[in-house]
């Protein structure tokens, strides 16, 4: 066997390696301090102390009060709980039945809205611009006094565009007395200050593994008196909003990863933006290549390009063979690359969407990763463009 080529990992929007700080922080909570924080004895208390300390840390980094942080088993659960839980609670109070989601939300939000639609809620989808920004005028026209939930993500997971959440909040508050605003900040927390950009948002979802924490842990910030109907019921942990024995190690890992992220964010953003600019400049030598998503509104880590005449599915195979890990569309459970609903919402036709790939950088990215991509990708494109069908 030939030695494997060096791996250039450009899929940080899918997941990141666990930061050493997070790993070290978590390790004591598997064997040494293994208690169930709901218990009353010393072993339990030690775990409870760690859990609450993690809660305080996450709250501080997201601009929330400790009592507002609900730990979940990841971003999807946080999104589901926010959208479904808030809508059901509002209906129980007779406040309305309207749910507004942006067209390019993650499926964790869109599927939750679909579920609510089957339960009789009115689901309205707000369009987005060609540059990947929620259309504020259209949103304003869709929110009315019966609206109970509005969900607009802080950063889009495919094209990396940052959304004008303060404007969203202003629009919603002016039009609906009861509506709560939710934001999926899963892709945002690694890059922008959620505490500032989502300051007036009622519900905020985050996920640990997008910023150097463990998979299977997330949190939902639930402000003040926002009512939620829980999805998972039982022992009443997490203020009754998320029953189940607490994932202490996960919460500690999230807190440590988020703290490390916040502490180094400005350096990481500067470093990654430099890598990103060099990567984009290098890729732009490929004839016809275009960038998806408004470049002025992007996080530093996102490169999303379309390459005319290329099928992303084939390009990803050639990149993988050369040790370059990238992605296209959104992965479904079978592993197939589905045509992106995000790109469709931005007005790309099917062929252009299927010709687009995402290269996402992160805190662990290095100049060598960019070199590797620029070494491999143009050659792979030339190979695919030179291929002539043989079957007929």
């Amino acid at each position, binding site marked *: 066997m*030939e030695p494997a080529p060096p791996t250039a990992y450009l899929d940080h929007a899918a997941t990141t390696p666990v930061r050493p700080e997070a790993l070290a922080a978590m390790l004591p909570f598997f064997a040494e301090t293994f208690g169930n924080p709901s218990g009353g004895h010393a072993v339990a208390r030690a775990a409870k102390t760690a859990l609450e300390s993690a809660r305080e840390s996450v709250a501080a980094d997201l601009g929330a009060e400790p009592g507002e942080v609900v730990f979940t088993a990841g971003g999807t659960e946080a999104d589901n709980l926010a959208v479904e839980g808030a809508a059901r609670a509002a209906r129980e109070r007779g406040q309305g039945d309207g749910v507004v989601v942006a067209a390019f939300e993650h499926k964790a939000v869109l599927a939750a809205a679909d579920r609510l639609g089957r339960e009789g809620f009115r689901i309205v989808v707000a369009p987005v611009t060609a540059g990947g920004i929620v259309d504020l005028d259209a949103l304003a026209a869709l929110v009315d006094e019966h609206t109970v939930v509005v969900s607009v993500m802080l950063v889009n997971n495919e094209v990396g565009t940052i959304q004008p959440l303060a404007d969203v909040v202003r629009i919603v508050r002016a039009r609906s007395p009861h509506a709560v605003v939710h934001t999926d900040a899963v892709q945002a927390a690694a890059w922008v200050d959620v505490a500032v950009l989502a300051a007036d948002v009622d519900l905020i979802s985050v996920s640990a593994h997008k910023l150097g924490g463990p998979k299977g842990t997330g949190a939902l910030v639930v402000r003040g008196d926002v009512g939620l109907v829980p999805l998972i019921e039982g022992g009443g942990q997490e203020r009754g909003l998320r029953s189940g024995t607490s994932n202490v190690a996960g919460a500690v890992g999230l807190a440590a990863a988020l703290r490390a992220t916040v502490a180094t964010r400005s350096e990481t953003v500067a470093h990654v933006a430099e890598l990103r600019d060099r990567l984009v400049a290098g890729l732009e030598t490929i004839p016809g290549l275009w960038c998806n998503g408004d470049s002025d509104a992007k996080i530093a880590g996102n490169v999303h390009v379309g390459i005319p005449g290329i*099928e992303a*599915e*084939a390009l*990803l*195979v*050639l990149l*993988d*063979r050369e040790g370059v890990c990238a992605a296209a569309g959104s992965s479904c*459970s*079978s*592993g*197939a*690359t*589905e*045509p992106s609903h995000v790109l469709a919402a931005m007005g790309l036709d*099917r062929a252009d969407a299927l010709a687009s790939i995402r290269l996402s950088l992160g805190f662990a990215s290095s100049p060598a990763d960019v070199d590797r991509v620029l070494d491999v990708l143009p050659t792979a494109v030339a*190979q*695919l463009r030179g*291929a*002539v*069908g*043989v*079957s*007929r």
Partner: protein
Amino acid sequence: MTSPRVLVAMSGGVDSSVAAALLVDAGHEVLGVTLKLWGGESDSGCCSVSDVEDARRVAAQLDIPHYVFDYSVAFDEHVVDPYVDAYSSGSTPNPCVECNRHIKFGLLLDRADALGCDSLATGHHARRVRDERGRAQLQRAVDSAKDQSYVLAMLTGPQLERLQFPVGELTKSDVRAYAARLGLRTATKPDSQDVCFITRGGREQFLDARVPARAGEIHDTSGRVVGSHDGIARFTIGQRRGLGIAAGERRFVVDIDAPSATVTIGRPPDLLRDGLLVTSCTFVHDPPARGAEVLVQVRAHGQVTPGRYTAGSAGGEIVFTEPQPRVAPGQLIAFYDGPTVVGSAVAAA
């Protein structure tokens, strides 16, 4: 030195699992791929998530990369839509053949080429051999009970040059034994039986959901009305079951007239034909000489029948040595010379 690169279509079944394993053993650089073909509600077929997981797991056991390619739009266009159209026009489609023609040995073979693969392999039971002139030929599988050369009869010489069917050299029990020896999780998985996109409700429910059924009359061969039906899509030439007619002796569907939605039933002799009109002929290499004797196979596990090839290269008539039951329009016709596939055609109306 780099070894030849082979793309293996892995359905998640035992045959394609072993095809991949044999190629790995032979020293090839192997890439596994599973096709997502059907986005519909069926979870019984070759593109369900559990089958993808089986293929992925086998690829991991073999230490080869595995990918999923989404051909669901092309599958709708080339396989599902024509399937529905065929039934509603009174003919009997063969969706697995059309999938082979357009998807596996069309789009996927092109993709293999684009990826720089020297060949594409599948788990079909058929043999690709070289004749004395060095040309690629397609022959029946070693395991005649599992032979699938019929559904591959549309392949041409240039396509066969780039194809491999490793399990065609083994019996099915050898295939399973090989899989078991390697500890592959698919070793004891049952063979797939049905059309992959047909749900548990069956063909009729699938068609009912897509085309408005038009009720019509059932006639006997003298034109007398003997019954009625809810739609022609549930009938195939030669069908005996489900006619809803209480007759003294067994009756078969002998004709379907789509414009009038009339189904004609008759006795076995009413089905017999001296020949068969065909269209859309393909040939592995050269067409048979006009009037040459060929062996004709009209269904996947049917017998071969001798006939004379009097058609031109595009279409025409096959004259049987003995009268044969009428072939449903739309069925694939495979021509053989002994064990070797000569070409294919489609039964005309």
